[in-house]
């Protein structure tokens, strides 16, 4: 009887419309994980700033303004100007686009590829699994930035190559986590049932096993997103990232501008602050997401 009541309560007549339910979910998340929600707000702000960059930025980020070299922060230039007279606030606003683009694209590419390798490795087993896992071990034997440095050094510094280099670093972890989930899912009754019903290998993997890998994959993606932002910054800082004059947060801290930083410290402070705040947001949001989605991975 109690079950019946519960069913009645949860029945369609009492279920709010989808936007209402989503809003309820968000409010619950904010109440339970205020720290994570603040992180989520920072990530959302990054997305908005990146999307509306032309409306927010008062100046062209690549254009020098005549007579405006090394100006300290003031109402007309809230973050000051750099050594060739470009408005730093506008460069940071446009830099958000680069950071967001590189980190999202590298995460999707890296985690997506890792996911496919993990599914194949876990489901096929045998020599396929062996070959893929040994290859992943070799990739794990490189620290991420060193691997990215080597790849960019060979491919050449460009937005696309930086993205590929960062993505490659995300593959091995994703493949190992997904492989683990697939291996345990293979033993489950629902997979046996699907097999007995005559489902093909591909259908079992993509229809039945794939949804189970989503929670750890989303958690991994959030970690990888933050790592990618720092990696892009580090590569650009070392002069092997996105070539100037494209405004990249890491790039703004490197090159000839470094000579002016002791006299114009705003050039050193604001780009790094932007990266730190965004990575802080991604980490805080990712932590909360991990607690909600995958309690086994709680640190």
């Amino acid at each position, binding site marked *: 009887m109690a079950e019946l009541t519960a069913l009645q309560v949860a029945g369609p007549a009492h279920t709010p419309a989808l936007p209402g339910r989503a809003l309820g979910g968000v409010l619950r998340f904010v109440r339970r994980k205020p720290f994570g929600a603040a992180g989520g707000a920072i990530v959302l702000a990054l997305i908005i700033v990146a999307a509306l960059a032309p409306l927010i930025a008062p100046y062209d980020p690549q254009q020098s303004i005549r007579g405006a070299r090394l100006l300290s922060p003031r109402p007309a230039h809230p973050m000051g100007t750099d050594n060739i007279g470009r408005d730093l606030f506008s460069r940071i606003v446009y830099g958000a686009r680069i950071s967001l683009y590189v980190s999202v694209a590298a995460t999707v590419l890296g985690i997506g590829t890792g996911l496919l390798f993990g599914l194949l490795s876990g489901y096929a087993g045998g020599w396929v699994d062996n070959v893929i896992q*040994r*290859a992943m*071990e*070799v*990739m794990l*034997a*490189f*620290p*991420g*930035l*060193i691997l990215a*440095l*080597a*790849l960019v*050094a*060979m*491919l*050449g510094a460009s937005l696309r190559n930086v993205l590929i280099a960062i993505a490659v670093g995300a593959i091995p972890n994703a493949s190992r986590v997904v492989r683990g989930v697939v291996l345990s899912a293979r033993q489950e009754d629902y997979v046996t049932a699907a097999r007995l019903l005559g489902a093909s290998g591909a259908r079992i993997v993509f229809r039945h096993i794939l949804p189970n890998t989503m929670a750890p994959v989303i958690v991994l993606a959030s970690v990888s997103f*933050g790592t990618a932002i*720092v990696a892009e*910054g*580090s590569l650009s*800082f*070392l*002069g*092997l990232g996105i070539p100037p004059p494209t405004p990249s947060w*890491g790039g703004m*801290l*490197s090159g000839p501008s*470094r000579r002016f*930083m*002791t006299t114009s*410290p705003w050039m*050193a*402070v604001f*780009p*790094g602050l932007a*990266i*730190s*705040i965004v*990575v*802080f947001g991604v*980490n*805080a949001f990712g*932590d909360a997401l991990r607690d909600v989605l995958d309690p086994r991975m*709680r*640190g």
Partner: protein
Amino acid sequence: MQRYVLRRALNMLPVLFGLTVAVFLVMRVIPGDAASAMLDESPTAAAKEELRRQLGLDRPLAEQYLTWVGGVLHGDLGTSFWTNRPVSGEIRRTAPVTIELALLASLAALVVALPIGILSAVKQDTVWDYLGRSVSIIALSVPSFWLGTLAVVLPAIWFKWVPPVTYQPLWEHPRQNLAQFWLPALVIGAGSSGAMMRMTRSALLEVLRQDYIRTARAKGLAPRSVILRHALKNAMVPVITMFGALVGGLLTGAVITETIFNLPGFGSLTINAISQRDYPQIQANVLMFGLVYTVINLLVDLSYAMLNPRIRYG
């Protein structure tokens, strides 16, 4: 235990073999040519061909690989395209700088992370805990290239102080050496300490819930003794695992901070080799990074047993 050590060491061989193949292929197969990078803006085809022949780049890939690996197995890592000297000499010259930097950075990370992690766990859900957790997440979020930049720029503005730029070896001028190394070590250590603080906190929290801790408390032991003598030792097992993962961070941190602080270490050597497209030097350096990383992770694995005898190896 001995069998486990042997098996793990043997397992490293295919990984190291794979590393040599990967490093070699990354350097040779992907477009980009050392010969054109070394010659002027618009080299003639003949000049390029001649240089390729001199560097041995015109030979079949398999032959180039076997020559290189054969050399590596005999301790010859290759000869620099630019200086024409053995690349191993450069590695020997720069490695002490990076090793010292990594050791000091590890020390800094431990000194910062352990007390904060312990305080956070012991005072769980108090203001100290929130403070400790905030510090750890900030440490995780601030990129080392920015922290390093600030560490150079701000003291120069505030105190008119710049870190010494001429490298002095530790064994010749220890005081000058440490004056030069403490700041970069702190920058790398700060980056690594965030993850370590979190791991110390969560590992200690888990151990504090165990029965033997309750027993120790019930016996009337002082809280300090329960935490430091009973709980911390077991909580260190996952922290040390973490340390293995942090070695990667220390190495990449070294690449960045050596560039910022002008230290002639292995990281600077790698960056210079990359900008000059000195393939043999890059190949050797990346191989060394991989080797060090793999060996340290093996040592970390083996050290578990010393800290926690319940872990048995099959």
